């Protein structure tokens, strides 16, 4: 069934959009990532204009993350204080990111920079998680205890706050910086930023894996909501119909994903996520390196 999207101004099969939403929803629930790093390239691929894809996927992430966040709140696996600190950084980052996005759009380099961002971030994080998870599995097989590392330079920073749920007493500076970085990515790449925040929370802040996913979802819901509003008011690129179709698929997928996630152990979950991140990274890198079928492209306007 073809559906004409009022803001994207293209006609797309409605079931294709539902399917994309569902797939991304399952990943969202399983890993605590918004899934934007998958949904945005998929929307590019089916012919949605990049600016609309980025803005609308931010809107979609609000919904799919919201239903997953409710599940985590009920299980009390959200560190609200840490989430709020990350959120403050995230809102600052989101504002900066929308400005940068508009600048790149004027230069005609938005696709390139978005792609390079994806390749670099996904590559580094995927490889890091993969190695760490393998080591952790090896250690636990030997019967040794998995110890959390505490970085001494993070311990030395001022403005320390007690995060009871995470069992941490650390400075608010590292989480605010993580939040800003994630906010920028949310605005430029149309992602929730879970794929960078989850590893940063585990390896940099030393948070227990149990509360990491719920807490990152808490930050993602609010940051992507702010990003949606910023894109809607400055670029008019949020397509409500596209969003709703992705959401209907996504919310169902998220519930299924959360259930799958609770049945698997944390190390398996991490190694799966690492594999997925590396796969998307490889595909995007391949597209940058291989000569394209059509070297010319058209954009409306002279800006």
């Amino acid at each position, binding site marked *: 069934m073809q559906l004409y999207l009022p803001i994207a101004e293209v006609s797309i099969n409605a079931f294709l959009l539902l399917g994309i939403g569902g797939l991304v929803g399952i990943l969202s629930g399983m890993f605590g990532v918004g899934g934007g790093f998958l949904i945005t390239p998929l929307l590019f691929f089916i012919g949605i204009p990049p600016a609309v894809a980025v803005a609308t996927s931010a809107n979609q992430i609000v919904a799919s993350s919201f239903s997953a966040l409710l599940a985590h709140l009920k299980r009390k696996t959200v560190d609200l204080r840490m989430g709020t600190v990350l959120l403050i950084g995230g809102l600052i980052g989101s504002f900066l990111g929308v400005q940068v996005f508009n600048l790149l759009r004027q230069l005609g380099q938005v696709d390139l920079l978005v792609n390079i961002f994806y390749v670099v971030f996904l590559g580094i994080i995927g490889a890091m998680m993969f190695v760490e998870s393998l080591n952790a599995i090896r250690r636990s097989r030997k019967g040794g205890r998995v110890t959390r590392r505490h970085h001494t330079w993070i311990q030395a920073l001022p403005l320390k706050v007690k995060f009871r749920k995470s069992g941490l007493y650390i400075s608010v500076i590292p989480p605010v910086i993580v939040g800003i970085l994630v906010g920028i990515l949310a605005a430029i790449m149309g992602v929730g930023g879970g794929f960078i925040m989850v590893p940063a929370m585990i390896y940099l802040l030393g948070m227990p894996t149990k509360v990491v996913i719920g807490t990152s979802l808490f930050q993602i819901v609010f940051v992507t909501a702010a990003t949606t509003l910023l894109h809607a008011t400055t670029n*008019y690129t949020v397509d*409500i119909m596209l969003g709703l179709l992705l959401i209907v698929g996504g919310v169902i997928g998220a519930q299924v994903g959360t259930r799958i996630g609770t049945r698997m152990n944390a190390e398996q979950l991490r190694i799966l996520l690492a594999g997925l991140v590396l796969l998307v990274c490889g595909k995007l890198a391949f597209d940058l390196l291989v000569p394209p079928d059509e070297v010319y492209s058209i954009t409306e306007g002279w800006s």
Partner: protein
Amino acid sequence: MIRAALMLLCLALPANAAPEEDSVLAGLSQNRIAITAAFDGTELLIFGTVKRSAPMRGETPPGIIVTVSGPSQEITVRRKERWAGIWVNRAALKINRAPSFYAIATSGPLTEVLSFTDDLRYSVSIPQAIRTVGAAHTVEYTDLFTDALVRIRSRADLYQNNESTVNILEDTLFDTSITLPANLVEGDYVVRLLLTRDREVISTFETEIYVQKVGLERFVYNLAHEQPLLYGLLSLVLAIGAGWAASQAFRFVRG
């Protein structure tokens, strides 16, 4: 229905009009196209008649050319080049005016019904419909860029070259159809008919079709542009509402 319309058109013609040049008259199957949520393209039928000034005296048969052009846009065509191992947008050509949609239908091969000078004068063929005034200063080989524009838009059925698709009956009645794709831009579409003889244009006729979003599509588009904050908040409320409702529904199903 078309045949009936053709008959009516013929009857409507005054039998003894002032004997000047031959001219052309036409009608369209629709002059307003509504883009609804289910819009998936449409077919436009164009039919008409050649109004003759005098009986045919062994002269060459007339040629008919129909063009449909959508609202013009300023566009930028960019070319990727390999730079530091990756493919990057480098050279760019700004095009003054390019129609968002352009279709041409003719009664015979274009070169046989239209001379090159008249093609230039009336901007008939696809390359002539694209304006690149002063573009030569910005990049070399401007043609490569305009060719790319035509190639990319032809693949999306936005530019169509339908030679020899106008049927002419008895050298007076003609009809053709043009398929409008789903990804139409809103605005006024100009339908132009050119009557040619011996490759020279002897008469033209112009009419317009209005393409616009209606109903929900119109409402959403207007709200997004006129009340962006309200629209953004509505998107969020719907998103969160849908998320919450689905999680509740899922819980209910699972018990």
